[in-house]
């Protein structure tokens, strides 16, 4: 309802061309704080996501950046309906998905997938790689038997793993390899939208680049649309077309990646930029001084 209007008025930069793949409007997710001597009453709320709006075009990468606790992860989950939003609208290919039931969501699940932050917690330790990647093909009744195996092996190959890994367990892999498994899982159904929730923040710096590059390659190859979430604005800048900066549940600034990074308007964005490590020690020292002055 009136998404056009609100979309247009809230932030001019998000006024994306019609035919946006994902359109999020006034999305709110509050967690109640309950207390009371005898019975729990809701005494307050944590406003994890406090009315955000953005949209993502086909083939585009939107970077969502903010500090820990700014509500990025909650926003991702609310968009994917892994958490029920308190209010607001989420449109996927023009279809309202907020408030849909599990069964109604199931066909849509094929279209939007998520890559999780923690490659250790996001893979079921008791399942083999083949199952982890292939199960959804079964759930969505896309493939089974030998065909399923073939597809999974193909996927493993595509993300840079060996097909022999099919029967291995997650604990036999390193963090980077695990994240590749997570990516293979997300791509198994050839989704249109992939939400990457800090996919590299738990990894060593050297491996981070490999994964980011992999994601980049895959995007080109499969014409994927990404929402890329990170707390490190440097990583986000590298991969994103546009950037939205989140602080305390709200989007404080959005715009094309370079614009946001070169000419930040919001004080918070500036602060984030100041935190990006710089290779040159001198510059880094200067930045630090800047930061303390700002703080």
């Amino acid at each position, binding site marked *: 309802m009136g998404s056009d209007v609100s979309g247009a008025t809230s932030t001019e930069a998000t006024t994306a061309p019609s035919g946006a793949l994902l359109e999020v409007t006034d999305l709110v997710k509050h967690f109640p704080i309950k207390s009371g001597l005898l019975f729990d009453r809701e005494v307050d709320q944590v406003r994890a996501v406090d009315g955000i709006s953005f949209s993502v075009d086909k083939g585009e990468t939107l970077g969502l950046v903010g500090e820990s606790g700014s509500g990025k992860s909650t926003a991702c989950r609310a968009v994917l309906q892994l958490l029920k939003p308190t209010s607001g609208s989420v449109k996927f290919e023009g279809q309202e998905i907020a408030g849909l039931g599990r069964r109604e969501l199931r066909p849509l699940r094929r279209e939007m997938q998520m890559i999780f932050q923690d490659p*250790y917690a996001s893979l079921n330790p008791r399942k083999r790689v083949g199952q982890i990647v292939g199960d959804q093909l079964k759930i969505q009744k896309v493939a089974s038997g030998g065909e399923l195996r073939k597809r999974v092996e193909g996927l493993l190959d595509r993300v840079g793993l060996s097909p022999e890994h099919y029967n291995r367990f997650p604990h036999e892999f390193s963090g980077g390899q695990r994240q590749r498994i997570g990516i293979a899982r997300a791509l198994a159904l050839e989704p249109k939208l992939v939400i990457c929730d800090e996919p590299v923040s738990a990894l060593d710096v050297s491996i981070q680049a490999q994964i980011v590059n992999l994601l980049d390659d895959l995007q080109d190859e499969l014409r994927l649309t990404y929402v890329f979430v990170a707390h490190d604005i440097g990583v986000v800048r590298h991969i994103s077309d546009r950037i939205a900066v989140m602080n305390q549940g709200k989007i404080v600034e959005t715009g094309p990646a370079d614009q946001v990074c070169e000419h930040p308007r919001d004080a918070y964005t500036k602060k984030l930029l100041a935190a990006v490590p710089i290779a040159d020690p001198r510059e880094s020292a200067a930045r630090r001084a800047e930061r303390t002055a700002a703080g």
Partner: protein
Amino acid sequence: MPSESEKSGAETTALEGAVVSPGTGPGGSEFAIVEADSGARQGGGPWAIAWRRLRRNHFALFALGVFLLIVVCCLLAPVWANQVAHTGPNQTHTLEKLHEGGEVKEVVEPSGKAIGPQFFAAGGKFFLGADGHLGRDEMVRLLYGGRSSLFIGIVAAIITTILAVVFGLLSGFYGGWTDTVISRAMDVIWAFPVVLLAIALGIVLAVGGLEIGPIHLKSSSLWIPTLIIGIVYTPYMARPLRGEILAFREKEFIEAAVAQGAGPSRIMFLEILPNLMSTIIVFFTLNIANNMLLEAVLSYLGAGVQPPSSSWGTMISEGFEALYSQPLLTIIPGTAILLTVLSVNVFGDGLRDALDPKSKVRFEARAGSSDPEAIGPV
């Protein structure tokens, strides 16, 4: 542990996940440690690893061997009874005499004292002597009694496991009202002195048997003590399971499954349940041990296996009536229980070390299932 603090704990983690940095979820790091410890590139699945560890534990394997040997012996009870002793477990020989190498011995003296162990002197008859006034063959009764004890121990453990998994999953996974109802019901049984509950049920059912709908159980049925024991221990297993499920529910791989469109039953049984298996297996073995001890207590108090069926518990209780004149009648079945339970416990210990060397469940499993309420206060 009180369920409340568990619940509040779950709520806090849920919030932390959302509000605080999702970067360092406690779950993730825990798994990392496990991995680091077990050697990141260890080959094979979790079961293969566990099996390799278990295979090195000779003591535990020996215990398993002892247990299996006992099981096999008890299964062979009819063979011994028919081929060697030539008598049944409930056949009385009050007035019979034993002709043994020219010597004639009375199976039961007029004073009621029974014949002692003959070993092979009488061709295997009365191998361990007779059981008191009735002159039943102690060895035959021991073997048949072992069947009852093992049946109760194992089947009750199966019942407990099924109930606990179902309740634990429903309660831990669905939360809300389901959780409240199940948790409160568990609280009640938890606060009920276990032996008291079991005995109360046992005594009441010993009179009339059980008739619920199509189920008719005679009062002498082995199923009555089995069911009682199975039900009574359920909360001790369901609670720790629920706790674990609550922790798993917050793990990202569950979200991943949801994101793939998996339904609740798929998540419960295919995603969560496999992760509970090692806990369940550990509980299961400990349950067998504890069930056999509880069976003994119940039978001793007249609320367990009903005579003339014998179990090791009833045999101790019968032997106890002749403790001063024939202490062997108490010592023999007691030793049988001790050996069996000890072998299960030793094996269970090894199994736990093999399956989950770092697991916190180690303590919970013990505290929960062998909660002294159950076997201690007796």
